């Protein structure tokens, strides 16, 4: 029986409507665990357009089939195309990315895909030196990203692998991560001093 009263949820939606930020601050038995989720909205117009595009492609394939009567090649071509379409539109589509902060243990980063596959990465708290908000510049755009500086490694680790949420959503996650890593750092220095 879940204790629903202690489940506090904060939902913040933004004007562009593409991402939804959910902050799960569990009370009850899992008090220390703090989860932040970024959910990708499924825009109905986009889905509609995707269906139309698929239908058009199939119609094109049938057309070619009628004209050329080269069944083998056309069948192969449409299967391959269909496969790539399914892969990019359904399997690789990201439903949700989450950051679960467990203050003394570490941080778990999850990516939920459309095919039901979930990729999880765990970073122990001692490995994280600092979490930083970076401005990334590409030849066409400039965006904010959240990353970890890890002890002993020269590369930054991105928290959100696939998504690029806006900075307003990244800031509360960054603050929570900083708070968690700082408390761990204090306990780290205490243990080092005592040796």
């Amino acid at each position: 029986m879940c204790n629903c009263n202690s489940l506090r949820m904060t939902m913040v939606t933004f004007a562009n409507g593409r991402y939804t930020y959910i902050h799960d601050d569990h009370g009850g038995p899992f008090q220390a665990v703090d989860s932040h989720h970024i959910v990708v909205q499924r825009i109905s117009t986009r889905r509609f357009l995707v269906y139309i595009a698929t239908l058009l492609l199939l119609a094109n394939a049938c057309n070619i089939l009628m004209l050329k009567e080269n069944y083998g090649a056309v069948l192969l071509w449409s299967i391959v195309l269909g496969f790539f379409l399914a892969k990019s539109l359904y399997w690789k589509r990201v439903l949700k990315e989450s950051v679960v902060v467990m203050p003394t243990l570490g941080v778990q980063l999850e990516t939920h895909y459309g095919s039901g596959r979930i990729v999880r990465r765990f970073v122990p708290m001692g490995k994280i030196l600092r979490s930083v908000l970076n401005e990334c510049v590409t030849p066409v755009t400039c965006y904010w990203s959240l990353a970890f500086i890890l002890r002993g490694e020269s590369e930054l680790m991105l928290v959100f692998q696939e998504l690029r949420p806006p900075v307003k959503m990244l800031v509360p996650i960054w603050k929570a991560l900083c708070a968690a890593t700082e408390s761990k750092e204090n306990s780290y220095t205490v243990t080092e001093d005592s040796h």
Partner: protein
Amino acid sequence: MDLMKSPISSTGKRNGQGSQSFLPSLLPSSFPTSTVSSIGILGRLRKLHQNPSLGLEKLYRHLTTGVGNSIFLVIFTDVMGGPTHRILMVSDFFYPNFGGVENHIYYLSQCLLKLGHWVVVLTHAYGNRSGVRYMTGGLKVYYIPWRPFLMQNTLPTFYGTLPIIRTILIREKISLVHGHQAFSTLCHEALMHARTMGYKVVFTDHSLYGFADVGSIHMNKVLQFTLADVNQAICVSHTSKENTVLRSGLPPEKVFVIPNAVDTAMFKPARSRLSYDKIIIVVVSRLVYRKGADLLVEVIPEVCRLCPNVHFIIGGDGPKRVRLEEMREKHSLQDRVEMLGAVPHAQVQSVLISGHIFLNSSLTEAFCIAILEAASCGLLTVSTRVGGVPEVLPDDMIVLAEPVPSDMVWAIKKAIHMLPQIDPQEMHLRMKDLYSWYDVARRTEVVYDHALKCSDENLLEHLSRYLTFGAWAVSRYWNW
């Protein structure tokens, strides 16, 4: 105050005869121009201004110290201060390259930041240096990852840089775009895109260009297109203004003249005066055709023959270095001519203070900052009378000559005679009065205020200006 006509100069007298007009600072009182002290003083004043409870007592203490007068002037301007702007400086030329344009952008940005404006610099990536970097004073620099293709210029795809420029303009909430250097493709593209989006635009031209050769003709056409619609333009000397107005067809009312300046805190003269038994002439420049390296090859042996106690120090590198080495070999001047090779910017001052005279043999210059640096170090300058050089220094600090070897030799002899009357410290103090980056920033602020007061136009009005440049330009615009 009318910045286009400085009270001292007049356009007619600039063609090499008679008086030379120079462009001094507009602030009459002595001002702490050293950047380090300015940061401290302005920082303290900002606190006072924001925190009136700090009280009159502290203010009184500041006023009665030695730098009291200048602080009072700063308080006055700070309280009177106009609106603050958010400025985007765009150029292909910036740190980590060193040069006139790069230093100009850097020092101007630093002074504008101290005046309370927000400055962001946009340039292309240099090697590994790409992304966002912060420099002194919180100066944000965007190194966008576009590869340079020719002489440090970004590849000129007409609409390629539009997405990133638009993103930066919006996220930094820019109010005004300031482009530098006609030769920079990134600058032209940024100005064009900014104008289309309705931002106010200012352009600074740092060099003189010709009219006759193929490269210049193309460059001038591009410049006409970009400058057709710029709000205000700035040139670094009156000669440069004439050149820019002729090349680009800008109305002269839109062009302001604001000279460059020099960091007098960095370029200080030697502590003790050098003895005059051995006269040392210093040359620090890129050894290329434009900077008159060929003239040096003629002048140096002649001077060494006529004046036995003269030695030369040549700093800098370039394609003409080989010719200078050959000249040394041919006339056996190894002990009298020292070649230092490329001199890093931080060591230029130590090279300059080891000499008495600075020799500049450029064949064309809009404004020569090297001369300012030499004068700030207390050296007497000998230079060719080209471009904007006559406007830079007063008559008693510079000896001018035509860019022919015989005239230059005569000028060097005259300079050697003038040497005993020169006091390096006094020269340095005069330079501090005449030129300061803070003054350049104040004058640039006035230009920005003028630009922002220009009326907003809709797209059709803005487009009609391009009609004068032919159907191709307009059709290219419409395609987009």
